[in-house]
């Protein structure tokens, strides 16, 4: 009896909400970025029997439907919480039936309509005092931190001002000018990181390809008291004079540049009291002539103290960033064993398709990361770093540059020849090939792969804490030639923006820009009239051979990376061959194998399976559908698939209620508006 009581007491802390109890209490399942659940009811033998438990359409959460639903719900104690709709509402649903329990929405007007992150958000966060005070925490389209009563959806009056903290307060440009609270540039669509009684929130800004100024809002990460909303600390991702790294902004350029936010998920080691911040690019994405130097903490993994926000260590993944290699994924905390030695590690998936692995206490790379010489820029005013970091282990888990001609399409000799002809119009080379000033009479741009939308993007990767394996989907067909041009007179104070001098200048906006609830916009960003007639080919995209990708398949891959050994355990094509390949008349009768699909999607790992959905609809080998697929996590073999009505657009999650396991995934795209679909096994065989 006594030992039973002791056992009960010992196991009590484990019964707090976690994936071990069948819940999914944070965006990535836990605060370690793993997306792992030990649930095993759904397995290889029955995955293909899954049926829809319920659906939740987000159409009516805003004045019009959304077509890019990116949320991953939480489930705590039988209730599912998430965001959705063009007004980024929060809903609480019965996790068994999908019945709506409450909905919260904030009408932010113009503040949301001009926000830099307008989609319905990646979801919400959960805080509890363990005594019945349960709260849902999220960031609105207009960049307000809101806390709601988890039971009722009502704002927590004692938090901030009537339940919210205005996150634009304290955001600055230049040397410290407060941004306008209504029109100032700042937003976020990732979920806050909550650890104990601390809420940690990042920041993000407009798309950095055609900026109107390099002196835009400066990024930062802040911690707030979860109970009151009081600001606890601020970490400046652009260090101020006297702060470590300020000298990496030469000529005082820290004062005249912005961005460098943290727009993706952060993670925390609660025991060590250390927080891991994946920082994005400084302004602008492809031109750094206004900010000579390495530009810390641009594109750096930064470890800060949970209590104070003070820097413990950092590692700059890209020096003087000009490739849009924003740190896109949640850093994964992994307790591994290398050469018999236990290491508390942090592993960072990336657009570069490298997994950067560090000792998370010291920041020392687990395997050497070498500085190697890279090509240098010839764009006026640009000074690229002579070297960049290259991990020696694990090997890259997807293609990260185009090796000409070996990487080019080779279905037929004619196709290879056409691809070579196209490539001849561009500058080509290894990783970190800098952008060039493209010209219709000469080279059109610098051919790159993966920086804008390749490798592992915002959906991140997953990690199995039992086997020490990281699972990552990666796009290896994101061909993106980059060309710079001078902006039209009066458009910007930066010397070069994305584009070509001989084509019409077009402003590049971010995904979802203009789609928030209260658009139409009062005014758009100024666009100077085109100086010259438009040409057909834009600065990026549209590079195909008979409608097919310039590069050879697989277009996307799923990789299992063993973190004890630092090698690839297995790698398989992601998804199935697209219709455009199967239907191509030049390829009739050819066996192409599985070419896989491009696109960027998230995944989960369970006791036995890796689960993720297709990024494309297909209809040649089965009726029109995008498949949700299960792979044997030990081998990569596909062991089951079920049809979904639209591509996966948000990362899946899994939970269990009353002994039944569910998988929920957000789908949308094309004709299909946003919908969360819950799958479970049939109650009766």
């Amino acid at each position, binding site marked *: 009896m006594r030992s039973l009581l002791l056992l009960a007491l010992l196991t009590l802390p484990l019964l707090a909400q976690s994936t071990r109890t069948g819940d999914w209490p944070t965006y990535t399942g836990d605060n370690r970025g793993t997306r792992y659940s030990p649930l095993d009811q759904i397995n290889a033998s029955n995955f293909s029997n899954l049926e829809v438990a319920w659906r939740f359409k987000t159409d009516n959460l805003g004045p019009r439907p959304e077509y890019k639903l990116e949320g991953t719900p939480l489930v705590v104690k039988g209730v599912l919480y998430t965001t959705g709709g063009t007004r980024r509402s929060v809903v609480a649903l019965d996790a068994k039936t999908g019945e709506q329990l409450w909905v919260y929405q904030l009408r932010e007007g113009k503040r949301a309509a001009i926000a830099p992150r307008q989609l319905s958000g990646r979801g919400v966060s959960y805080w509890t005092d363990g005594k019945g005070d349960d709260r849902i925490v999220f960031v609105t389209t207009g960049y307000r931190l809101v806390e709601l009563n988890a039971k009722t959806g009502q704002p927590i009056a004692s938090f901030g001002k009537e339940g919210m903290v205005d996150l634009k307060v304290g955001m600055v440009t230049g040397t410290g000018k407060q941004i306008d609270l209504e029109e100032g540039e700042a937003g976020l669509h990732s979920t806050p990181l909550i650890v104990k009684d601390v809420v940690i929130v990042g920041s993000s800004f407009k798309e950095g390809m055609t900026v109107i100024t390099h002196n835009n809002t400066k990024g930062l990460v802040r911690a707030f008291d979860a109970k009151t909303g009081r600001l606890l600390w601020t970490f400046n991702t652009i260090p101020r004079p006297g702060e470590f790294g300020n000298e990496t902004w030469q000529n005082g350029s820290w004062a005249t540049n912005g961005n460098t936010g943290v727009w993706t998920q952060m993670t925390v080691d609660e025991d060590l009291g250390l927080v891991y911040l994946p920082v994005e690019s400084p302004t602008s994405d492809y031109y750094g002539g206004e900010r000579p130097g390495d530009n810390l903490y641009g594109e750096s993994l930064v470890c800060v103290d949970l209590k104070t926000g003070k820097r413990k260590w950092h590692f700059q993944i890209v020096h003087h960033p000009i490739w849009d290699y924003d740190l896109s994924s949640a850093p994964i905390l992994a307790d591994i064993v290398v050469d018999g030695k236990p290491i508390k590690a942090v592993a960072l998936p990336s657009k570069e398709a490298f997994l950067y692995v560090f000792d998370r206490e010291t920041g020392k790379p687990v395997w050497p990361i070498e500085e190697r010489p890279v090509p240098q820029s010839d764009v006026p005013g640009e000074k690229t770093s002579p070297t960049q970091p290259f991990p020696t282990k694990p090997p890259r888990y997807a293609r990260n540059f185009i090796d000409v001609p070996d990487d080019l399409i080779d279905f037929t000799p004619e196709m290879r020849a056409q691809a070579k002809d196209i490539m001849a119009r561009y500058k080509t080379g290894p990783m970190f090939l800098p952008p060039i000033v493209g010209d219709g009479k000469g080279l059109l741009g610098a051919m790159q792969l993966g920086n804008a939308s390749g490798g592992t993007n915002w959906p991140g990767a997953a990690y199995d804490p039992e086997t020490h394996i990281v699972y990552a989907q990666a796009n290896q067909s994101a061909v993106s030639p980059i060309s710079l041009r001078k902006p039209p007179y009066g458009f910007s104070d930066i010397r070069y923006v994305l584009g070509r001098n001989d084509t019409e200048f*077009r402003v590049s906006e971010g995904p*979802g*820009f*203009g*789609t928030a609830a209260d658009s139409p916009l009062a005014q758009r960003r100024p666009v100077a009239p085109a100086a010259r007639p438009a040409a057909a080919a834009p600065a990026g995209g*549209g590079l195909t051979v008979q409608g097919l990708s310039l590069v050879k398949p697989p277009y996307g891959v799923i990789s299992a990376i063993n973190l004890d050994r630092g090698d690839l355990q297995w790698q398989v094509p992601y998804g199935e061959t697209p219709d455009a390949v199967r239907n191509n008349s030049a390829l009739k009768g050819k066996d192409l194998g599985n070419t896989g699909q491009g696109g960027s999607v998230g995944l989960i790992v369970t006791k036995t399976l890796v689960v993720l959905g297709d990024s*494309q*609809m297909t*209809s040649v080998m089965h009726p*029109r559908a995008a498949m949700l697929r299960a792979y044997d996590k030990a081998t990569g073999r596909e062991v089951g698939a079920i049809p979904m009505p639209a591509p996966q657009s948000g990362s899946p999650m899994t939970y269990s209620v009353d002994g039944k396991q569910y998988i929920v995934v957000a789908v949308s795209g094309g004709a299909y508006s946003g919908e969360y679909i819950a799958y479970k096994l049939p109650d009766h065989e």
Partner: protein
Amino acid sequence: MTAPVLLAIATLFAFEAQTVWDGVYTADQAKRGAALYADRCATCHGLALTGGESAPALTGGDFMSNWSGLTADTLFDRIRTTMPADKPGTLTRAQTADVLAHILSAGGFPAGQTELPTQTEYLKQIRIEAVKK
């Protein structure tokens, strides 16, 4: 069988099982649509319909994978209800049909003698097919 009945049956067959390969828009309509497209759509989707960071391509394999197998009203309604993203609902039904005609033209689907209709019930009878059957 009387002549009117025969005519009715003939008409029925004429409008049955149409696909985008059957010349469902006119060249003039696509030309009007091209001008509208350049003005209202190209900023995000690109002049060559190849898309960009902020918006998907409106031609090619990825685009067709979203729409092949559906009927034209779904694409028409997607444009009508959500586009242009910064000012949805500002195109008339006729303008929406013109833009759709331009997208079909750019996708290599042949022009015909009849304009693409603006009525949902008629558009429902035109299937989008990536490949000519």
